């Protein structure tokens, strides 16, 4: 279930914790297998992570559902993680998310028909000063407007 390459990466994280505390690496392990699986997790993958780190599967599920970083359904090539917490909301994130949904013809949590983009509402990403904002891949996009969103989407391939 988990590739050798992924295991190797997970092991570097496991090595950072005391012996017997390998389950501390669960977040990194989930991130690694999610990335390898095209951006989302499956029950089987979570089970595999649990087995690999010798921890109960439900404990993996607890972590995986607590954090917004993990997707439990398949996602598009790019995930637009749109903040909807207080600063962004006050600056009009709701309207922008609706605009995004309309433009892509998707609802949050769905994938666009070309499979390129999916939209996710997330909790605060710590960039309140630049709200409304979103994250795509490792990149933050701040002070968003409809025009800016058009540009960003045009740039996605």
């Amino acid at each position: 279930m988990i590739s050798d390459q992924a295991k190797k990466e997970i092991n570097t994280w496991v090595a950072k914790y005391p012996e017997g505390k390998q389950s501390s690496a669960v977040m990194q392990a989930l991130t690694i297998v999610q990335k390898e699986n095209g951006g989302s997790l499956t029950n089987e993958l979570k089970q595999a992570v649990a087995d690999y780190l010798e921890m109960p599967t439900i404990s993996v599920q607890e972590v995986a559902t607590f954090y917004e970083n993990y997707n439990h359904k398949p996602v598009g090539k790019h995930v637009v993680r749109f903040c909807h917490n207080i600063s962004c909301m006050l600056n009009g994130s709701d309207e922008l998310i609706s605009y995004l949904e309309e433009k892509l013809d998707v609802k949050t949590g769905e994938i666009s028909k070309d499979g390129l983009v999916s939209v996710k509402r997330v909790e605060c990403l710590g960039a309140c000063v630049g709200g409304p904002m979103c994250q795509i891949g490792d990149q933050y996009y701040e002070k968003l407007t409809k025009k800016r969103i058009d540009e960003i989407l045009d740039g996605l391939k």
Partner: protein
Amino acid sequence: MMVDIEIEIDGKVVHGYPGESLISIADREGIDIPRFCYHKKLSVAANCRMCLVDIEGNPTPQPACSTLSSAGMKVHTNNEKAKTAQKAVMEFLLINHPLDCPICDQGGECELQDVAMEYGSDISRFTEGKRIVDDKGIGALIQTDMTRCIHCTRCVRFGAEVAGIVEMGATGRGEDLKIEPFLSEGIQSELSGNMIDVCPVGALTSKPFRYDVRSWQMNSIQTIARHDLVGSNIFTQTHKNKVKRVVARDNESINETWISDRDRFSYQGVNNENRVLIPKIKIEGEWQDTSWDDALDFATNGIKKHAKEGSQFGTLASKNATLEELYLLQKFTRGLGSDNLDYRLDASNPNNAKVLESNISLTELETIDHALIVNSYLRLEQPMINHRIRKATLNGASVSTINAKAFDFNYRISHSVLTSPQNTVATLSGVLKALHDKSSKTLPDYLNSVTVHETHTDIANVLLNAKNPVVVLGEHMNGNTCSDQVAKLVSEIAKASDAKTINASLTGNTHSAERVNFRPDNGKNALQILSSDLTAFALFDVYPNFDCIDSKNAIEHLSRDDAFVVVMNSFDDESVSSFANVILPIASFYETSGTHINVDNIAQSYSASVKSAGESKPGWKVIKVLADLLNLQGFDFTDSSQIADEALSLTPRISEIEVPTSNSKMPNITTVWQYTPYASDVVVRHASSLQQTQIGQMSEASVCKATAKLLKLSEGDLYKGVPVNINESVAEGCVFVHTNLPRQLGVV
């Protein structure tokens, strides 16, 4: 060193230990503090906030469960500040809780209901929509209504800390937080029913009990669970002469506050339709219902006619019979001049000697630092004994096993030796020899030619390094034809390593059977009774197709034309009907008074919870009347407690018999036959919900590749009626059958 400290709660001076939580002191002093997430047997979570109290000098109220006492503390549980806090928490907890108490099974015995009455407001200010949670099915025993859940996490902590199998968890976060298992596969723990008891609301309730009757309509009767060696304390809750539910009763030295699922849900068996309700006699091959008088006459006349001499009579009894029944039955049998009696029906070598005693109490078990488990899947065989060992492991104890299969224990096994029945003697001898080598004692002769392997030395080392080790011997020994040697060697290993012992090979009420000497002194044992030319038999709650080691032979033998078989049974059984001549219906569990002697030799007496079903009578009364009709002396009892008094006043005879040390010949490939815990006695076999659980449905013959090849078995074939599963967790040279199906087995 624990030092007593003084604190003040509500103006009352009370004592506690430094580091003791306020709630635990208050509980001891009878001061009421509301709580949901706190449970005395679980870790402190402090997430419900219901137990907020005011501590002088503290600006805000503090949770009493996680605040530790310190000298001079002044605590108020019911001043303005505390009350405001409690009322506010209550309001928050009720925001999402549905107002469905009238259709909730927990209604009337609900902690949330009680606390809301006492500490909550009369009206809700919340007008928004309440949240709804989808339910995941979690099996046949626990009904979930997770919309009612208040996220106290008691069930989650129970799984992680007590059951040792983490199944429930808190997924999502914020308003989306849900308590659920990973998948809807059903809970696997053998202690899962305790989650129902710990749940403070109606989120987890008993599925078999669902919508049956309201809690306030039932009577609660203190009684004892009879399925295992522990005799867990329980309440039977009855309504209109039926047991509707079983819940745990606290007894710190026996079952603490937990009971196994077998003890909790087996009552369904007693209510099963398959009971014998009317006395029956067989005339010219036809069964006829009849009156008690006629049936008893028929039985006594038959015994007189077929057993002209006492030695032609033999008695077999269930290991779950009460002390009173076993005592009277042996008195009856010996009164007839027979010494042919036994309860060890599943033993392939019911030797006369009782080689291994148990000499450690359940509470002491928590203090061991190493356990060696021999021939046992202890977790399923004796859940409460296993629970104590698990508690010891949480304090650092290690566990090693010598078993035919690597079982799924709920703690880590440090050393595991896989060994087939035919190699068990060699393995145990190896360990014993290694122990002798280490302590440089002189070797007894029979160990001279024994080979010691590294694995044997490993186990010997951990035993010798432990300060308080224990050796546990389990059920799989019974099928071993060298069982006397196995027991003897286990006893020698314990002696050589200064270990305590637990003999869990004979379960149920077998300590009572031993107490009243329900085994032959010079007469025939169970195997001999079922293979010699006796002509009259009494069977007491025995169902040979499940209970006897060689069921086919037993049934054939009892079906002989010249055999007269008096059966005292509580359940109807086709094979019994085929050989019996008279069936006298007897009371089942909870329908008769009796006494159970547990592994600590504690005799616990209980009274009947409900009247016997149909025309059935308590077993002791039936045996007494049979004895009276046969003019036997010494049966002048009017009450079962008189029988218990007499039985317990006698000192059991101890038969010192030398154990043979020569190897009896065993085949190259053997079978270990283990029933699921829900097929271990007739009552639990009829408990329908338990049968639907994962443990109850287990039926597979595990065998390793090499042995499968020798037996020409492939995956999915039937081995003695049980589907084959090829895996490498089984010792070479044996098939491990774990099943709920009746035995189709010659001896090993």
